[in-house]
């Protein structure tokens, strides 16, 4: 696979939240480059703005200023409906609490993002089965999320994230709700996605063991991004 450098290019990204009549600066002039096939871990204390940065990269939040180019597309310039369509094709989400739809089976959960593509029913089935095989849950596709363990649910969620073959995968504390063994399974799976399938992953985590699986660790502190942790961390 020939790797494209700078699949994510962030320049001067700023974000503040209004709380009452107080303006809270969450991200200050963030610059960040991520290459294709890279596994990046974002660490930092609680409230430092990790989730906010990830949401901006994933196109579900609006920046105040600055630029976010992903795969050559300036996503801050996209209108809401264009952004939704862009997400469907380019972003795979892995959440801390898996966020599977409880009334749908594992198969249907994984199929959801494919409903936004033009694929036929048969093609969707092939893709879903492939994705579930990657996460080693092909035998559980007719189970509903309630019938699966936390680790299994997170693996279904990972299958859902990769099924459209998106440009980037974003994971917000993917092991935060899992026991040690399940967390290891999920991390191993994410490593395999990077090494075997060439996926690009941006992962927010509090867990140093998780971060160690990444190629690169960035630290956010009070909205400022550093390559190394601050002294007081």
């Amino acid at each position, binding site marked *: 696979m020939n790797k494209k450098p700078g699949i994510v290019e962030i320049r001067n990204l700023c974000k503040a939240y209004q709380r009452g009549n107080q303006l809270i600066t969450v991200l200050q002039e963030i610059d960040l480059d991520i290459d294709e096939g890279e596994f990046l871990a974002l660490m930092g204390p609680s409230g430092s703005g990790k989730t906010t940065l990830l949401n901006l990269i994933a196109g579900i939040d609006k920046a105040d200023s600055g630029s976010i180019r992903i795969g050559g597309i300036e996503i801050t310039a996209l209108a809401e409906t264009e952004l939704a369509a862009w997400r*469907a094709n380019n972003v795979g989400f892995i959440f801390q*609490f898996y*966020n599977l739809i409880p*009334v*749908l089976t594992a198969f249907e959960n994984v199929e959801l993002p494919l409903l*936004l593509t033009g694929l036929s029913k048969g093609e969707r089935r092939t893709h879903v089965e492939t994705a579930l095989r990657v996460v080693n849950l092909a035998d559980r596709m007719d189970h509903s999320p309630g019938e699966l363990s936390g680790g299994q649910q997170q693996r279904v969620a990972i299958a859902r994230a990769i099924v459209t073959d998106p440009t980037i995968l974003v994971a917000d504390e993917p092991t935060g709700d899992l026991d040690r063994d399940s967390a290891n399974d999920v991390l191993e799976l994410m490593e395999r996605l990077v090494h075997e399938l060439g996926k690009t992953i941006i992962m927010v985590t509090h867990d140093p063991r998780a971060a160690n699986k990444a190629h690169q660790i960035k630290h956010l502190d009070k909205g400022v991004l550093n390559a190394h942790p601050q002294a007081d961390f």
Partner: protein
Amino acid sequence: MRIPFSYSFRNLWTRRLTTFLTASGMALVVFVFAAVLMLAEGLQKTLVETGSYENVVVIRKAAGSEVQSGVERLQASIIETQPEIALGPDGKRLAAKELVVLIALPKRGTDKPSNVVIRGIGDASMPLRPQVKLREGRLPRPGSSEIMAGSSIAERFEGGGLGETIRFAMRDWTVVGVFDAGNTSFDSEIWGDVNQFIQAFRRPAFSSMIFRMGDPSDFEELRSRIENDPRLTIEALREPEYYRKQSEAMAKFLRILGLTLTIIFSLGAIIGAMITMYSAVANRVFEIGTLRALGFQRRSILTAFLMEALLLGFIGGIVGLFFASFLQLFTVSTLNFQTFSELAFSFSLTAGIVYQGLLFSMIMGFVGGVLPAFRAARMNIVEALRSS
């Protein structure tokens, strides 16, 4: 692309107790709605069945009913000679010139008068209405002050019984027969020689004519001929059509009454649906955030929740109609408002009522679901995802 329908359906199934209770409220409204429409339908059907397809009623143009109509002697004799009219066994034409007058007579046991239809009949009047059968006594003789009373008159009106006399139009009339007319409105009429009545009421004209077609398929041709005849200012209607028009006012009244009632009731059901849907949205904020993050548009979320509400309404509609369909097993009696006689008929469920009932219940679902669905669609993704 839409969120699959099964998503909406399964969410209803997952919270089936709430779904059941909410749908029951809607079902009740649809039941009442359907019941009133079925009543109107059944009533109309019974009245229409009073008429026979081969029979034609002739009244003055735009008169609406026999009571308001007038057909002059000359006009009557023109109509009487039309070749399409069937011949009776005696070789005479099966056509009757009739007079219909509404008078007030005292009821038995009270002084309060009530309306009664007096019908002057001709020789053909009885053969034209085979459902009318003499029960007691005999037919009134032409040229005499004899009358016969419908069974309901005989029972309920002063002097209406066999052998008694009734005074109207400044004459005493002797009841020489009592007739039975099934469940039709003739049951509350008094019949006598049309020529006697014309004299007694000093009427210059007949009210209507009724005749049987030799071949019912000739009707359209005959109708256009006599309606276009400049000497005749009349209209001709097949008997079922005439009775359908007669029952329209009453059926319309019932339908409006039913609709008004159910619209008031439906407010409760709509509020129920709204509460259910609002809580469904509140319980699934996280899910909504997830779906939006995955790339589903606001309108997909809107549609999914509207679908859920519409489906809820649909279920309510089906259940309501299911129970309403059992009403068909019952027969009810009511006053015929046109003639104030008893009328027995049953509830009648038609495809139209099923369609209207389902439409009505889905409208309830829609109205109840639209605000919650908009709330779901308006959510901010990040806030929704933080809401865990």
